[in-house]
């Protein structure tokens, strides 16, 4: 293990280390802690100019209550969910199939197709912006959740296929061969042999895509406008316009908007990290 395990150091070094971690963490998260503090201060603290004093009273309930009951925030959150979940399901499904094809079968175009998916995944969004917006308008899907979902599914398929293909390549090929010897149809091999083994990869991808799509801002701005279909990342700018300079409310709004992926991360941490660090180890 590197660096040297701290248990092998002297007692004072160990205590020093135990003391340093929380200090470093507080410094690291300082901007966020500040916002969390703002979100529970009552509005009067800001008008009186005491930004950094401790809250004069607990205003959390009122602030968060306003976010949930007196703004469009719940609507935006719902939109985000209705965009994020179908996208995650769609992209995972498409990439399971594509990953199976690229990971199991040997054919000439295999590596080229794989690289096409990988390359597409690195492309700067802006090169797609004008044509995709145009296409979405032509399909009559501008300013709809469906329009966003279709695009996200297509774009995320690149990354997901890279992930799935590498995962499936790591499975023992003997399994597939012995299934073939037994005369199992190819699609049955996919459904009954490969799919059950892919559960951890599916879970990992699902959380990752959920987070990526929830946090998307660019496409939300390009393909939607207005409260009917905008997700929370885009909606929060209108929210902030509504409560301009009311920092306690804007902070509460920001925290609410950030919460779902954070919850997802803490609940599914193992899968999340496994997905994110794909390939970080030989």
């Amino acid at each position, binding site marked *: 293990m590197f660096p*040297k395990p701290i248990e092998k150091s002297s007692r004072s070094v160990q205590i020093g*280390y135990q003391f340093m971690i929380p200090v470093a963490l507080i410094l690291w998260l300082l901007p966020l802690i500040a916002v969390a503090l703002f979100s529970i201060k009552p509005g009067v603290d800001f008008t009186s*100019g005491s930004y950094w004093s401790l809250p004069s009273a607990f205003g959390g309930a009122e602030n968060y209550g306003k976010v949930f009951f007196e703004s469009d925030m719940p609507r935006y959150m719902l939109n985000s969910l209705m965009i994020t979940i179908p996208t995650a399901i769609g992209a995972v499904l498409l990439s399971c199939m594509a990953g199976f094809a690229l990971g199991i079968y040997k054919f000439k175009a295999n590596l080229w197709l794989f690289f096409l998916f990988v390359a597409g995944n690195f492309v*700067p969004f802006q090169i797609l912006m*004008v044509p995709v917006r145009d296409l979405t308008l032509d399909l009559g899907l501008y300013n709809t959740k469906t329009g966003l979902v279709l695009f996200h599914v297509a774009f995320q398929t690149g990354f997901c296929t890279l992930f799935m293909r590498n995962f499936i390549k790591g499975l023992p090929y003997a*399994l597939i061969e012995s299934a073939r010897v037994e005369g199992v149809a190819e699609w049955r091999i996919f459904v009954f042999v490969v799919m059950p083994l892919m559960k951890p990869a599916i879970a990992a991808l699902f959380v990752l895509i959920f987070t990526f799509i929830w946090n998307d801002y660019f496409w939300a701005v390009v393909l939607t406008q207005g409260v009917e279909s905008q997700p929370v990342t885009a909606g929060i700018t209108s929210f902030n316009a509504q409560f301009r300079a009311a920092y306690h409310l804007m902070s509460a709004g920001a925290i609410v908007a950030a919460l779902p992926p954070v919850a997802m991360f803490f609940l599914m941490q193992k899968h999340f990290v496994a997905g994110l660090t794909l390939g970080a180890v030989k």
Partner: protein
Amino acid sequence: MHLNGICAVNDPEVVQLFQFEFHMIAKETKMNSQPITEITKRSWYKRNEIAITPWLFLTPAILFFLVYVIFPIVQSFQVSAFAWDGLGEREYVGMANYKELLDDPAFYTSLRNNVVWLFMYLLAIPAGLFIALFLNQTVRGIRIYKSLFFFPFVISQVVVGLVFTWFYDPTFGLLNTILGGVGLGPINVLGDPTYVTYGIIAAGLWPQTAYCMILYLTGLNAVDPEQIEAARLDGAKGWKMLWYVIIPQLKPATFIAFVVTIVGALRSFDLISIMTNGGPFGESRVLSFYMFEVALSEYGFRLGYGAAIAVVLFMIMLCFIVYFLYSMYKEEKGH
């Protein structure tokens, strides 16, 4: 490339278990299939099953990808040769959009800022390695610390942008409160043309460093302990150990950190849009933001000109994509 931890099915017992199941699945298949006499003239599909199946499985993904990713790239190149407001007739102008770019000071500002972003953003890699080394211990509660350090990456860039805008605020922001505490004058980071891009990049480095940290933590986990012991016996420690023994073994993690950081730097849009909207005086623009501004904002809908900017950005990215793919290709051939 392999996955860490989540695929461990090389166990022969598992294989046997599956073989038993294949019997069951195969039996079912046979029961459903045609009488034995048909086997000699099996259907065209059955005869070519192994050749056709991959294409059937690939079709939906390829279709989506072609329509929403590959064709649009080609179309953007096309659009960049036209003057178009998105509604009326397209007017062919040839290379005029690109010629106009050459005389556009805003384009050069954006390009310069893109270069600054590329270099500064790479700081996330050593910073991530540093934090990973700091946290790679087994003391009590370390797992929670690791996830809390990773936290900024999970938050959307929009929220990161808001948080840092308030952090930099010249009247009440935490930064200036702290600076004021040690007697330094207030700096309006986001209002000053010299500092603004660096201020935004600092905000972007926060989640990006967290990402690199988690890559390196995973990498450090897999470093070969025997090599470390051998190097220790040879008297290597500290920096020398890190440089000659550890970092070479972290190469796969470094490669991914490099890829995601470059892609992230060239995609930077959210933070600029939220924190400064390109200002002050357009000094914090980058190509991706300028393109959006030209094509879809109150500056008028100049989609052709926007597409030309996007093409330039794409060409910059293409150099990196070719390099990434070349590295992956060598890796694939190596196996």
